[in-house]
């Protein structure tokens, strides 16, 4: 294994979040009756002409800027010619030699994983993104669930003409985990700037991997295999791992690899040949005569840039520098924009950014997960959680009581103060009252007192426990500690 180096390049297709298709006014709504959202343009009927959707330019620009690409002032749509039943025109309108954007350098954080899947050491890695171009999606072939499916394929063209951004990298990845972390990075970035829902399970983010291996130290790339049908980031990772093993196995046995396209079969946990190079397509690209060149002004690009939110990586770094959070904590809080917003509001309201981070990551996310919600739908507002953190920091209630209070706040939507009052949870910080309880505890435990005074200091914890118990959990542990120490040694 160590004699071989893995080389991976990735292509991602992300559906841009528009209401209507890229070249016609049909709805992009998912799950409608088959072929209902079609018209002469997306059915490829003779004489129909495409007109570009303006929102596609804006979302494409957002995606490109979020991934560090340069947007070209002029790009050209081109016809990619091939025959397939889900492509009614016989060509896909895409971009070829003059794409919408190119030359991106993206820094991602990546880590290898141990056998249990836990990250080992996070490190930055630069990935070159060759291009991001705009194109239309094809329709959907239905291969199951309909009559005579062994003899027929069924075509639903609702998806035909849905806008896509295709994002292509250089062969920069050396491990499957790097590829995994890159796809997650891209997915988060596209969601963050509102360019795409980027949900692999729903099919609005699709991924293909070009995989080859070469002997360590060799300069020439090995024969590459294109992997398709990678329906989740986990599947992609498994497919690459399998494919690398397979290729090394063939080469070490003295065999030769074919340049081919292979499909990942999750059930069989293996890749299978889909088509070999001999059948590879000759797409005969040429400029789309029905669409003018796409002109994008510097002013337009500047406007889009100004309207962009702070990007996730920048925000993660700021969370670490300004709020003193660790890398894993800051990463978790910037996994979604709504969560990052929630955190910052809570940090401000509580006056204690690190405590706010702990409460959100452990308690709040657990409640949200259990209820199947995200931060923006939380029943507990950031201000309310901030108040709770303050109550704990001010020793009004204990941390343990805080958990109960949050649970109740989450259930009922009440404020922290209301729950504390209702439950009589106010923490006992009156030193006179605490002294009285301590005196009682000392009197009722003479033998422990004797042992403690004889040097058995471990018994201090016993006394603390007894006092807290006698106060029904309300006594402020800090004050109990202070007063107990004084009284036991007097």
């Amino acid at each position, binding site marked *: 294994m160590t004699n071989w180096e893995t080389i991976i390049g990735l292509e991602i297709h992300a559906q841009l979040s528009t209401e209507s298709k890229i070249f016609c006014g049909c709805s992009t709504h998912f799950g409608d009756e088959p072929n209902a959202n079609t018209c002469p343009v997306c059915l490829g009927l003779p004489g129909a002409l495409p007109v570009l959707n303006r*929102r596609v330019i804006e979302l494409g620009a957002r995606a490109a800027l979020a991934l560090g690409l340069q947007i070209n002032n002029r790009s050209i749509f081109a016809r990619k010619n091939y025959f397939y*039943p889900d492509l009614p025109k016989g060509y896909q309108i895409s971009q070829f030699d003059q794409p919408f954007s190119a030359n991106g350098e993206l820094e991602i954080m990546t880590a290898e994983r141990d056998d249990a899947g836990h990250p080992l050491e996070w490190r930055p890695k630069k990935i070159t993104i060759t291009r991001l171009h705009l194109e239309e999606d094809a329709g959907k072939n239905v291969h199951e669930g309909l009559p005579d499916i062994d003899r*027929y*394929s069924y075509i639903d063209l609702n998806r035909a003409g849905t806008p896509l951004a295709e994002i292509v990298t250089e062969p920069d990845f050396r491990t499957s985990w790097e590829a995994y972390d890159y796809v997650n990075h891209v997915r988060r970035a596209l969601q963050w700037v509102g360019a795409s829902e980027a949900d692999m399970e729903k099919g609005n983010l699709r991924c293909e991997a070009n995989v080859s291996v070469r002997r360590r130290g060799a300069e020439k790339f090995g024969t590459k295999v294109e992997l398709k049908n990678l329906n989740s980031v986990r599947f992609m990772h498994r497919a690459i791992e399998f494919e690398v093993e397979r290729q090394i196995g063939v080469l070490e046995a003295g065999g030769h690899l074919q340049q081919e396209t292979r499909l990942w079969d999750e059930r069989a946990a293996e890749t299978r040949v889909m088509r070999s190079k001999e059948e590879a397509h000759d797409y005969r690209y040429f400029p789309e005569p029905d*669409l003018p060149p796409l002109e994008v002004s510097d002013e337009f690009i500047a406007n889009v840039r100004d309207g962009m939110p702070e990007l996730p990586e920048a925000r993660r770094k700021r969370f670490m520098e300004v709020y003193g959070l660790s890398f894993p904590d800051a990463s978790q809080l910037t996994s979604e924009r709504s969560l990052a917003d929630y955190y910052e509001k809570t940090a401000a309201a509580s006056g204690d950014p690190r405590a706010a981070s702990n409460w959100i990551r452990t308690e709040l996310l657990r409640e949200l997960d259990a209820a199947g919600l995200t931060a923006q739908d939380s029943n507990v507002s950031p201000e309310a959680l901030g108040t709770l953190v303050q109550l704990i920091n001010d020793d009004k209630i204990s941390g343990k009581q805080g958990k109960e209070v949050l649970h109740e706040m989450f259930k009922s939507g009440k404020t922290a103060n209301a729950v504390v009052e209702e439950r009589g949870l106010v923490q006992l910080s009156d030193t006179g009252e605490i002294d009285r309880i301590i005196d009682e505890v000392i009197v009722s435990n003479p033998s422990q007192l004797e042992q403690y005074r004889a040097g058995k200091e471990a018994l201090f914890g016993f006394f603390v426990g007894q006092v807290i118990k006698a106060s029904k959990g309300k006594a402020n542990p800090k004050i109990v500690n202070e007063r107990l120490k004084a009284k036991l040694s007097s």
Partner: protein
Amino acid sequence: MPITEVDVEKVAQLAHMEITPDELKIFAPQMADIVAYVEQLNALDTADVQPSLGGLTPEGETTDSAREDTTAPSLGQKTALAEAPDAASGHFRVPKVL
């Protein structure tokens, strides 16, 4: 670049057309003639001429022809499938593909 029978065979294959050896002998010289005819344009000096993409004038080329992202009525399933050579269960139906 002279067009040969090999080129014609390749184009036919890409177009999913069956072509007989006899037809190949007829079409190859015909296509060669057509290409030679168009190649006369190479006599023009186009070093300073921008490609006219989209068939528009220089003014027209920068015309913003994009539309707003609003939906318009679609044909609906019934109309969309009405002229299909074969349709079933709300879908276009074709011979089995992979």
